[in-house]
């Protein structure tokens, strides 16, 4: 099982005329603070999480 893929059927907006950005990307803000919570150490997906965290691996390293 891979990470869930979200299907969005509403169309993206048309790019406004005159919109420009270096390499077509423009950061605007940043994420609100996160909340620390305890995840339950149960199930196959937790085990994958624990492996990544204990071995400081990323998702893509995990994929290999």
């Amino acid at each position, binding site marked *: *099982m891979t*990470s*869930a*893929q*979200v*299907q*969005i*059927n*509403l*169309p*993206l*907006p*048309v*790019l*406004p005329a005159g*919109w420009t*950005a270096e*390499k*077509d*990307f*423009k*950061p*605007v*803000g*940043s*994420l*609100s*603070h*996160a*909340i*620390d*919570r*305890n*995840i*339950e*150490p*149960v*199930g*196959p*997906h*937790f*085990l994958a*999480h*624990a492996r*990544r*965290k*204990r071995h400081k691996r*990323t*998702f893509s390293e995990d994929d290999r």
Partner: protein
Amino acid sequence: MSAENDPAQRVAIGISFGNSYSSIGFTTGEGRAEVIANEDGDRQIPSVLSYVEGEELHGGQAKTQFVRNAKNTVAYFRDFLGQEFKSIDATPCHESAHPLQHESTIAFKVKDSAEDEENEVTVSDITTRHLKRLRNSAAYYLGKEVNAAVITVPTNFSDAQKEALNKAAKEAGIEVLQFIHEPVAAVLAYDARPEAKLADKIVVVADLGGTRSDVAVVASRGGIYTILATLHDYEVTGLKLDQVLIDYFAKEFLKKHKSASDPREDARGLAKLKLECESVKKALSIGTSANFSVESLVGGIDYTATINRTRYDLLGNKLFSAFSRLVLHAVEKAQLDPLDITEVILAGGNAHTPKIASTIANAFPETTTVLAPSTSTTAINPSELSVRGASIQASLIQEFELEDIEQSTHPMVTVTPHLSHAVGVLCISGDETNGVFHAIVDAETPLPVRRTAIISTPREGGDVLIKLAEGLRHIKVTKPEPKAKKEKAEDDSDDSDDDESDEEEELREKTWKVSNVLSEAAIKGVKKGGKVEVQINIGADLGVNAIYREVGGKGGVRGIIAGEKAANGSA
């Protein structure tokens, strides 16, 4: 390393140990969880021990001893483990051996040997004996020694309680690989089914047992579970439902036998009523009527009667509503709305009761799936959810070193930052007030996370804007148009107290408000009918790494949004 602590030598089972019933299970070679029937053929094994002339009876056989041998019958003891005498509620033990203070712990005074003397048996020892019986039943069924287990516990089981249970299990020859929370075991039992899809959802688990009801609100994100709120109630319970039936049949009995004494005031009469009423309650979960039949209920009078489900539904009405209020209260405690709840999993024995399931289902919108035998054909037996989850977890970890398991369950690994708001894209319009927000990663998702979305583009394709933003879930309430008063007064003049229900219900919907724009990106020259793929990686430091590309197209756009700390630092 001793043989039984060697992962290679382990035979691990799942155990659900309740105050009322316990269950044992294992996972087959094909990865299917199975619940084991004991020698009596029971899969819900009463957590009861009884001593008759030195012989130990267990489970269903012990339970029948409530009638003749109540004083030497021990029941409803799990929650006493690791507790002080002064902090326990002994009410459920009124009709069996009473708990008493024993040094710093709790014991039961029973004649548990062939001699005619009473011994004080601690709750730890009783638990050990109970677990030994469960272990033996499992070993008998599996045809090999069992030496390890995953055991489920309530979410409010203290460290002292877990420690006491761990010790008692060890004494019974069981190495506890892990304690897992009952509601999480229930979610896992459902998620482990082959047809289950990995989806982000908010699940409420309502575990309706004999002596307690426990509700947990769980965020399930990519198969990882986070408990958002819990609630525990010791009043709205299965035993209370039994009491409703006990009172009903006692009164019916007294109506018929005017000179007889009240069976509830006779120890044996009450014990018989209790056992029979629990059976009647269970029968009413499947049938539309059930028979009550007790020999010599009181004063040598046999009594038989029937009850139909409609009557029962009426009698239990107040309690049924109370169950539903508990569930709603837990949702409120999680600061969520019923519209946020994807699924309600009904667990515990009383979840079999159709009216409980339908009352709870009525408290939620149609978009919420209520998983109980009477509301869903795909529901798993609610009495088996805990043990199934435990069995699956046991098979997942049984090859690990205990030290490895301990490290993985340490807060260093489990305490994780969770997103406070959903992150998604604006559709249709890039203007925050007109655009429609669509979440890609939901709030309460643990970090780091990686998600991919496939998004449609305008009919003709072309250049598109991808605006990432945080969305706030908003409940939009639409009040119905007030009806013309006169009209109403005319057509229903004869029902007086009904105007409330005549009013149309307000319409409640889940919508989004864009709260915080994160970034803008462009994909140019999308072909007609093309789709855009957006992959979002959010790190534990709240840094976002996004990749945008046309599905099947070349190249793409990459963007980095610095995490809060970094952003503040550079400002």
